[in-house]
């Protein structure tokens, strides 16, 4: 057995050289992305759900392009929202079970920063791909071509907000064995403004209205949740682990 000499960090940390915030953020983000790519089936789940729901609707309704175009913004947004909601339960669950969540909160870095890294990883693997494939599915619903860009932008902004808000609910319910239903009940009220503005903006884009104020509002919602949600989720995780 080889055992190196110990270098105790008391003196070094006392001198104010604490582990870097950025280094901790980057390492957590990289680890979470790697984990998500290791489990491809889970990675594909939200996308498959999104695609299935959107494909089934034209089959269930009449294949009338004016009808489909009029419901397309709401339909695309609702299915994207549900796809994000379905993926939320796994955000902290695995980490809670294997004890890495405990260790994450024991890191010297503030919990909010590390939780933000996990949320960003979640968004990169759910919200971002959902937004990217949305134009393909929008064609199927005969959404007018000029509103495709707006659909993508609203989904990009909105899904990030959904991931952030959802993290609070996921953090609160992580200690419960069957927290899925409670999680939905907790965060759906907070999701409704995002849905209303998201789908509303796309509808206005079809009519050719001025969109700047609507997009600015969506950006404001994202900024607000970016400021508050990681810290709220961090505090909620501490509560869940305290028990």
């Amino acid at each position, binding site marked *: *057995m080889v055992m190196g000499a110990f270098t105790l960090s008391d003196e070094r940390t006392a001198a104010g050289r604490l582990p870097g915030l950025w280094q901790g953020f980057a390492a957590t983000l990289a680890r979470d992305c790697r984990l998500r790519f290791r489990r491809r089936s889970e990675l594909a789940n939200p996308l498959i759900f999104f695609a299935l729901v959107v494909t089934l609707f034209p089959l269930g309704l009449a294949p009338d392009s004016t009808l489909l175009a009029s419901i397309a913004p709401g339909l695309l947004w609702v299915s994207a929202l549900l796809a994000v909601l379905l993926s939320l339960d796994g955000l902290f669950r695995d980490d809670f079970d294997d004890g890495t969540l405990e260790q994450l909160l024991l890191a010297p870095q503030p919990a909010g920063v590390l939780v933000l890294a996990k949320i960003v990883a979640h968004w990169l693997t759910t919200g971002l791909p959902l937004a990217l494939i949305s134009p393909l599915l929008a064609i199927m619903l005969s959404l007018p071509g000029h509103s495709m860009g707006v659909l993508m932008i609203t989904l990009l902004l909105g899904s990030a907000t959904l991931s952030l808000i959802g993290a609070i609910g996921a953090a609160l319910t992580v200690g419960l064995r069957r927290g899925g239903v409670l999680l939905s009940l907790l965060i759906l009220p907070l999701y409704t403004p995002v849905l209303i503005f998201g789908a509303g903006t796309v509808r206005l884009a079809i009519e050719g209205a001025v969109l700047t104020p609507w997009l600015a509002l969506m950006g404001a919602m994202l900024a607000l949740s970016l400021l508050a949600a990681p810290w709220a989720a961090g505090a909620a995780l501490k509560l869940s682990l305290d028990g």
Partner: protein
Amino acid sequence: MQLDTRKLGCERDERWLFHDLDWQIGPGELWRVEGPNGAGKTTLLRILSGQMADYTGTLLWHGEPLSHCRETFMASMLYIGHRPGVKKALTPLENLDWYQAMRATKGRARTRRDTCFQALEAVGLAGFEDTPVAHLSAGQQRRVALARLALGHQSLWVLDEPFTAIDREGVRQLETWMMTHCQAGGSVIVTSHHDSGELFPSSDVLKNLRFDGHGGVHIER
């Protein structure tokens, strides 16, 4: 390193697990916390490692309340609990690299990796660096968690049942590490179900904190 408890108490289900506990953990001290199941060993360790806020009394780190110096305390404390804190889908190297990045002051990714390799070699996992942890045996998985001790940043080790699933030789190794750590000026708080005679047979530095199971705690220096 110096951790003090002042009148520390914790109540669970209308029963005091311990109360008015005045305890000093100084540099070079090796403490063993023992007691029957459910006596509150794990709870005490979770409080000492700053994970639980539900207690009475104060915790002092270098004479300063823990809430005032969370960052420095967390940077110098290593906690290994019942749950190993190891991701099964990742390799041992990736697992350790994350811990190293979280704890080490700024360092190149290359040197970080080298430190991780050495730590894995120290716990006898040389050659398994790139095998996903899920493919390793229970004892080897435990060793991945224990490899964090060999990364060597923290002066205070808080170890809850570290000997679980470890073979006899591994237990001896771990004991040696703890004693080396104390000789270097660090401190260790450890719980275990082994008999007193079985662990640290050659050591005279071992101190005991014993729960008697009726809400009483005895400190034997």
